[in-house]
């Protein structure tokens, strides 16, 4: 019989009105990487909250057997004492503190009278950072390092707690492909040293790459545990378990009706950083978007794609912006975001929670927000009935899952939030819709629906610009793909030409030039 470090047996968790977990079983072997997959709302996070003690013993039924003994965790400290550490999707680091301070937060290195031993703190931090390959000084502030490095800090922090079972919730959702691979390779390295990990992720290629066993959850129940001993499981096989049906095509097909008319164009667009004004983030970038076209922007993090999109969208980012911007063939000088919307531009941000939605407001309010004059009269009086009708229409069209349009957006799952964000911009009736990472952190089913919405847009003769870090979706959806690196345009491929290899080599070639 296999040596299980963790067995969760018949876990059931009820919330008022919903069964979040229904008789779930999970068995994790010692020294493996175990992937936990499922659509949003399948119960993955709830299950991990049970395991870590965030949901205390007594609020669920079932048993947790860890290292052969039955455990009753009342809080996160109980589980951490046993060596179970969870790293959440939203990183729990304090921006204004140093790497070392964050690493030992709540677990400070103190001397006998309770004074913090700074020398020990910084040197121990440095040791842990080496283990995760983080090349920074331990006295650097968290806010001064990128998301990828912050993720490494979290892992180093877990290692400092002598972790035996490491749980990572969507560790790569905000990382680009290169950083993601590095992180996964590191996990594989730790596995060799005997660390057991549970990884929750939506990215199935990562699952196939690193997991030994895969447990699929759906609607709060365990569907199956699939072995992936030889690390080349078919992704379709996992999807079948997740959605309960075969998704024959991950990208909806469409007719490619790209017109000759150029709808949106930028020439020699140059943007500098808003704070460090001598740093150039976009340099002489030019591109064109035709009527009925989906244009992809590929590149690593920091390539300047978001900065490009935002600076074009009414100068909502950057300083010393220069270059020309054309909409429908006419040169425009957009003063602000409102101006951009009036000219038929829309920009759906990559970070829907921070920049995209008003989480405390209802679906209805969020939907109409960018174009209030469509549901109000000249004097600015809102026609609430009309607003609700519009919101209902978009909920239906987008297949947003919600009990009502009066629901606060913060209570929806990620995929449904993304649909509300798209509703908002569709409601504004743009000619050009810029989508920044539109499918980040959402499940396969919702992704498919968002691709369909994009197809509908271009079928109506509009244009979509899609910024994405996931190459497969760019290749699957776009008519043309631009490749950016370090603020410059380094490649352009048609749908027929483009392959993952060509795009990556375009990036690498430009890197070499820089060196």
């Amino acid at each position: 019989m296999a040596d299980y470090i963790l067995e969760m047996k018949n876990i059931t968790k009820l919330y008022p009105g919903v069964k979040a977990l229904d008789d779930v079983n999970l068995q994790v072997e010692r020294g493996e990487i175990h992937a936990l997959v499922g659509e949003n709302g399948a119960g993955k996070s709830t299950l991990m909250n049970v395991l870590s003690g965030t949901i205390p013993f007594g609020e669920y039924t079932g048993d947790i057997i860890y290292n052969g003994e039955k455990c009753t965790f009342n809080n996160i400290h109980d589980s951490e004492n046993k060596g179970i550490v969870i790293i959440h999707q939203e990183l729990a680091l304090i921006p204004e503190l140093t790497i070392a301070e964050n690493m030992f937060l709540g677990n400070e290195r103190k001397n006998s009278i309770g004074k913090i031993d700074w020398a020990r703190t910084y040197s121990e931090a440095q040791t842990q950072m080496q283990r995760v390959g983080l090349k920074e000084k331990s006295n650097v502030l968290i806010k001064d390092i990128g998301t990828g490095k912050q993720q490494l800090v979290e892992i180093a922090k877990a290692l400092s707690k002598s972790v035996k079972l490491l749980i990572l919730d969507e560790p790569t959702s905000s990382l680009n492909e290169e950083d993601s691979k590095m992180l996964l390779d590191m996990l594989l390295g730790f596995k060799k040293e005997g660390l057991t990990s549970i990884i929750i992720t939506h990215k199935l290629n990562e699952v196939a790459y690193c997991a030994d066993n895969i447990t699929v959850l759906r609607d709060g129940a365990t569907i199956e545990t699939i072995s992936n001993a030889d690390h080349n499981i078919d992704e379709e096989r996992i999807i079948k378990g997740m959605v309960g049906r075969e998704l024959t095509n991950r990208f909806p097909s469409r007719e490619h009706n790209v017109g000759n008319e150029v709808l949106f164009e930028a020439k020699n667009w140059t943007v500098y950083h808003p704070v460090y004004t001598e740093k150039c983030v976009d340099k002489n970038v030019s591109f064109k978007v035709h009527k009925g076209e989906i244009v992809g922007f590929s590149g690593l993090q920091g390539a300047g794609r978001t900065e490009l999109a935002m600076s074009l969208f009414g100068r909502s980012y950057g300083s010393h912006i220069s270059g020309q911007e054309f909409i429908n063939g006419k040169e425009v000088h957009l003063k602000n975001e409102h101006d951009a919307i009036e000219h038929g531009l829309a920009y759906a941000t990559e970070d829907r929670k921070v920049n995209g939605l008003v989480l405390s407001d209802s679906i209805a309010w969020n939907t109409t927000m960018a174009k209030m004059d469509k549901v109000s009269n000249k004097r600015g009086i809102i026609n609430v009935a009309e607003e609700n009708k519009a919101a209902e229409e978009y909920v239906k069209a987008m297949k947003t899952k919600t009990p009502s349009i009066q629901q606060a957006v913060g209570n929806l799952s990620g995929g449904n939030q993304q649909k509300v964000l798209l509703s908002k911009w569709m409601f504004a009736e743009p000619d050009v819709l810029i989508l920044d990472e539109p499918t980040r952190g959402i499940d396969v089913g919702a992704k498919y629906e968002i691709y369909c919405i994009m197809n509908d847009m271009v079928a109506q003769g509009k244009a979509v610009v899609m910024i994405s870090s996931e190459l497969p979706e760019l290749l699957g959806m776009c008519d043309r793909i631009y490749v950016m690196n370090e603020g410059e345009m380094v490649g352009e491929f048609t749908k027929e030409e483009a392959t993952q290899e060509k795009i990556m080599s375009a990036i690498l070639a430009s890197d070499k030039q820089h060196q």
Partner: protein
Amino acid sequence: MNFKAFIKKYTMVIALVVVFIFFSFLTGGKNLMAQNISNLVLQNAYVLVMACGMLLCILTGGNVDLSVGSTLCLSAALSAKILSLGAPAPVAIIASLGVGALIGVWQGYLIGYVHIPPFICTLGGMFLFRGFARVILDSRTISVSNDGFLKIFTSYITIPGLDTQNNCVSALILGIIVAILVVLITILRRASQKKNGYDVAPALGTYLRTGIIAILIVAYSFKLMQYKGIPVMLIWILLVVLIFAFLTSSTVFGRYFYAVGGNEKATKLSGIDPRKVYFRAYFWMSFLAAFSGLLMASRIGSVDGNMGNSFEMDAIASCFIGGASAYGGSGTVPGIMIGALLLGVINQGMSIFGLSDMWQYVVKGGVLLAAVVFDVVSNHKTGKS
């Protein structure tokens, strides 16, 4: 709506009723006397008016305006001074409101466009405007005796021949008319919603609520009838409250406050300029504070350099008791009016009962904390954070 949801939605209304009944027992029904009912709103005129402006500030993200007590004093002092020099009432009123608008532009500009933190900016204003007020008053008390001025704000509506001192039938008649209008509007609105195929709220709940409101209006006007009739100041207050209730609930102007308070970045990227929204919040706040200054000057009949001290705190407390979020983005005018009335009922009840000032502070603080703690805890339980 089930019982729990009902309790949650009407917590403060229930609290208001309970507190009111409690004080009726405690004072042997004295707080039900016509004079006390009539004075309840008038005594709290400044809170009711300024809470409307304060709500706008709080909506933008839990920001408050600390300067309104001083602005109120400056406005009152200016009017009193101008009137004492023999100028007619309209001149004083326009001058005071003008100064309020000027202060609004000043603070709105600093907070919205120069990005001075509201707390600091209005703290500065608090000292600054009280200072100016005392300069105008020359550290003395100036009495307000201009008949025209007093008539505009403190008189009662009486129709000769119909009304007498303690039997102002006109008040009751007007009350009944308003009550009928409220019922009619509710019925008509429901019918038109139904005709257009929109979702309508359950009939029983809607009519029950409308019925209760109508009965309260009639009962209130009955009490007013027994004591001098309808005060003009009540009409001023209602005007302000109704305008701001309408603005916040039904206009784009109002919607933007909720959006900015909920997520400023998302609001900006939706093509709304947050700077304008901040500007408007602090502009209207100062304007309403100046207006309250006129109400206070006429009601008290004199102005001194301490007028309006800590009034800003009453307005802020009303908002938070009335369900405005300390983080911004939520709160309604009807809600904060309930909050203001709750504070008013407690103050008046304790005064009638004979509790001293010091205990009133203790109770005020307790009520404020209890309301906010209740709000946070009950939201926590329903899963909103």
